[in-house]
């Protein structure tokens, strides 16, 4: 029970901190949303500036506390204001959400499975063919920036070999439907961005899983299992891997923040119209209400995953419950 309270406490505290940071940034920085957006255009008309300020609710003569409460209320009800094209930010985000959710969700599951599996095998046959092949490869994958891998894949498989489309989420002229042709088209467009994310995300999981396995393999209970003459498969999966996977679950949250960050760069590279691409267009249009709402969305996503991972760890490993 104490565990649940502590975890929920961190969840709400972090959420509150993110909301407050979001509230404070415009107020601590020089100018406000309206001036920032208008600084992009030349010859600012004072009445236009005032109109924008009223629209964004950045009225300077309002009490800070009042506007803070108002802001929290607006966030809870999903009212994030309008973007530069006068469309409610929420509508814009909901349009991009499914694409990012699909891309990041599927690739995370694939990367986690592949990473964990390779980590298990490489630690089990430590110093073997896979392990020695994997370690330099792993090094490259975890060190090379996400966008460089994206650009490389785009160049090799998109331009030189021409196997996959260069950008966007489905071909121009296709209408979204559930037909086989359309689904295949969507998958074809998602492969390069997806592979980039899998490749960069799996590295971290292989690395931690391998190192955890190496240490659980030297535990006494593994020696005991060997002495009892259990089958190697059973020792590898039920004894060693089962214990080694726990820290990987806890690290899930930090990895997710990393993957979400990577997905912004990947979506930009492949012009994939999800939330990450919106982030970029928000940058060029100085669309601060949009960006702040996106920041909250990403934070909420990570927080929810941290919570789920924490409870899963507690469920799987009783030792962590008193921590």
């Amino acid at each position: 029970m104490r565990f649940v309270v502590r975890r929920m406490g961190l969840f709400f505290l972090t959420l509150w901190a993110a909301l407050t940071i979001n509230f404070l940034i415009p107020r601590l920085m020089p100018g406000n949303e309206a001036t920032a957006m208008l600084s992009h255009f030349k010859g600012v008309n004072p009445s236009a500036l005032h109109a924008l300020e009223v629209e964004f609710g950045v009225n300077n003569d309002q009490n800070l506390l009042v506007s803070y409460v108002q802001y929290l209320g607006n966030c809870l009800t999903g009212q994030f204001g309008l973007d530069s094209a006068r469309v409610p930010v929420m509508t814009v985000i909901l349009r991009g959400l499914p694409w990012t959710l699909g891309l990041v969700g599927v690739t995370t599951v694939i990367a986690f499975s592949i990473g964990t599996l390779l980590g298990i095998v490489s630690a089990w046959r430590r110093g073997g063919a896979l392990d020695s092949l994997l370690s330099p490869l792993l090094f490259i994958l975890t060190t090379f920036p996400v966008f460089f891998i994206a650009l490389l894949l785009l160049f090799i498989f998109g331009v030189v070999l021409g196997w996959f489309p260069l950008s966007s989420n489905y071909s121009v002229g296709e209408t979204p439907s559930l037909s086989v042709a359309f689904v295949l088209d969507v998958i074809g467009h998602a492969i390069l961005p997806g592979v980039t994310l899998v490749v960069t995300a799996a590295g971290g999981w292989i690395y931690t899983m391998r190192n955890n396995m190496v240490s659980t393999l030297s535990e006494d209970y593994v020696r005991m299992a060997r002495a009892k003459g259990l089958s190697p498969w059973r020792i590898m999966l039920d004894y060693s891997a089962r214990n080694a996977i726990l820290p990987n679950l806890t690290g899930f949250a930090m990895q997710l923040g990393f993957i979400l960050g990577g997905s912004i760069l990947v979506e930009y590279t492949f012009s994939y119209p999800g939330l990450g691409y919106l982030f970029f267009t928000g940058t060029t249009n100085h669309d601060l209400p949009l960006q702040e709402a996106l920041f909250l969305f990403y934070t909420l996503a990570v927080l929810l995953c941290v919570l789920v991972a924490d409870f899963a760890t507690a469920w799987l490993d009783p030792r962590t419950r008193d921590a």
Partner: protein
Amino acid sequence: MASPQVFLPGAETQAADQGYRDAVGRLSRAVLRNRKATIGLLLLAIIVLVAAFPGLIAPGDPQAAIYEQQLGPSWSHLLGTTQVGQDVFTQLIWGTRLTLIITVSVGALCTLISVLVGVTAAYVGGVVDGSLSLLTDIFLIIPTLPLLIVLSTYLEGSGTVAIIAVLVVTGWAFGARQLRAQGLSLRTRDFLEAARVRGERRPYIILVEILPNMLSLVVASFLGSAVYTVATAAGLQFLGLGSSNEITWGTMLHFAQQNGAIESGNAFWALAPGAAVALLGTAFALLNYAFDEIANPALRSVRRQRAKSDS
């Protein structure tokens, strides 16, 4: 028995010097014996030299738009030219300097904050530890790149200092957590107890007794932040944030991407600065891995351990 010791002015700093000198000596010997560390240092040295003397390799103004636009690679333009007719190779060489300056200053500042927060939390304990740890956890969970993007959109046009500032704000937490953990494990050691019994002041204990024992972790924390900074700063500039009128590898990437360099047969314009970012990241990461191995012998590769036990 021992006569009451007389502390001369300067004795403290002498003791500190001795402690650091021992630690530095041990570290540098370990670095030279490690192959990853040697390669990493070599790569870094080359990059530093290029950053220091770009004019020797690529004479000419990297900003001068005096050539034909969007040329492919040729002998006169090794990596082609940009959309306004600048030489990409010259930009790559001259961009090294600012890229390196940003990386090193963010790494150093992040480490400074990590040390301050981590060691204070571990040593002072209690409510201070509780609140500092909470702050660290919050900054660890909040996704970095989205926060960075929001911050830098506000600071658009304020240049290199602003980019360094936002990267430090978002990058210190990981190191702080590691340093706190190490600090906690040191806290109960006998030599610290002895220092406390001797009646040493807190700053003395932290600077002379604790920090030398954490030096390898402090260095590792710097290297880790540097690896983070190389990729994150470039990613941010790739998206078009940070001042785009100054040349770094990240801003080169941005203009290449905006002009469809990859698709339009000028791929090196984007791939070369990308590879340069990867190379700088690799140099720091090699050093970082090497430090991990030095600090944690269990991670050393099996082959070498076998070779050692055979001989």
